């Protein structure tokens, strides 16, 4: 009974952390999308320099642990440059930059999976390469990327828990704070786990609906083939 009372009393405070967690994930995904698309385009269509730069970026952010990056950016780079970026936005930026590296590979795979004739047909109609990419390639590649992107969402959501090391007041930080004072670790972390599970479920359901809404008629959702 004691466990339930502790959980009941702490739940509004921990639920509040869900909003912070969702905020981190949404902003990081958006930053990852904004950087991931140009990175993918640079890797597929760019010249040698663009390909090298994009490759270096992906190599760095996939190769260095997120925990190291959080410390590197928050206590290192942002502090030494005197940038007034708080723990929440530092978490969003670091997770966003890392996610961009992973998202770029999802988009790159999707672009490469399109038949080369699509780009050729755009050119043959007099479209510039930029127009062919914008009007023909990206609308198809982004649709194909949605299943992989949903995967990236669930990974990012779980990675966001590590942001508690900067003092970001998300689910993990708040649960840890309450648990260290009440010593009800089992019940409280079960609640935290349940919250992550529910947010994942809601996000994936939403993305599945988006995938269905955007699927091309005549193809199964996810572009797996003609019906």
């Amino acid at each position, binding site marked *: 009974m004691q466990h339930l009372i502790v959980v009941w009393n702490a739940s509004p405070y921990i639920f509040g952390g869900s909003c912070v967690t969702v905020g981190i994930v949404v902003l990081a995904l958006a930053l990852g999308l904004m950087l991931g698309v140009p990175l993918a385009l640079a890797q597929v269509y760019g010249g040698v320099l663009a390909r090298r730069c994009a490759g270096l970026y992906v190599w760095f952010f996939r190769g260095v642990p997120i925990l190291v990056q959080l410390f590197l950016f928050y206590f290192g780079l942002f502090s030494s440059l005197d940038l007034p970026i708080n723990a929440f936005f530092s978490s969003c930026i670091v997770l966003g930059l890392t996610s961009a590296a992973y998202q770029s590979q999802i988009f790159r795979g999707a672009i490469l999976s399109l038949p080369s*004739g699509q780009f050729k*047909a755009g*050119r*043959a109609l007099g479209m510039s390469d930029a127009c062919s990419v914008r009007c*023909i390639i990206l609308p198809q590649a982004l649709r194909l990327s949605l299943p992989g992107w949903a995967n990236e969402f669930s990974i990012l959501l779980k990675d966001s828990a590590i942001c508690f090391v900067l003092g970001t007041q998300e689910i993990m930080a708040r649960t840890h704070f309450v648990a260290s004072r009440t010593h009800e670790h089992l019940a409280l972390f079960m609640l935290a786990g349940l919250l992550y599970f529910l947010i994942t479920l809601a996000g994936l359901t939403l993305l599945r609906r988006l995938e269905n809404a955007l699927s091309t*008629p005549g193809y199964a959702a996810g572009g797996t083939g003609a019906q």
Partner: protein
Amino acid sequence: MMETPVLCIENITLTLGGRKILDQVCLDIQRGELKVLIGPSGAGKSSLLQCINHLVRPDSGIIRLEGEKLDAANTRALCSFRTHVGMIFQDFNLFDHLSAEENVAIALRKVRGFPRRAALDRALEELGRVGLARYAALYPAQLSGGQKQRVAIARALAMDPKVILLDEPTSALDPELVGEVLAVIRELAKAGMTMLMATHQMDFARALANEILFMEHGVIVERGTPEELLRPDAVTRTRDFCAKLVV
């Protein structure tokens, strides 16, 4: 005085991986002519068609459209050239995420700058011309191969091309669907559309071509009217090749 050819190709040469794909190919097409390229697989027919609008960049050679030399290094000039030279691909290359109507309208909007409504109206008109007006809302995955190729033809026609290049437009189709595509091309030829077509449809070539060009090893080895090359007593490479085709 001889009229300026719509399309004039001089000494197109293409080398890929050390192998000569096209060797000093020359040809010209007058307004309203239908010229047919035939030859065995690997002869360079598709490469020639793709070199003409620089989808594959030739090593050397000159391409003139209505007497004006193409400056392929100038991107704007190249895009403008391509709007005047329609291209029909063997495997259709329709944009899978767009309906038939949008497939035809997209270049009108993005290249010609048509407003959306006007582009869709024009697209519907072109789809009507190939007998597909009632399929306008369907997507490529919902169309048969023959219908897809007719949409591709409508898409090329919508740009008001001065010449259309057709790269084996029926070779990816089931035999029963070939007729509907050839019927559309036949109508275009009768309406005076200038076309250069790679095909193995010899009956079609015999009936409609102004000239047959026989390609082998990247060179046009024979050229002449269908009567000259295909008459029963002709001793030509073209006739020899046609005799081996399974009809």
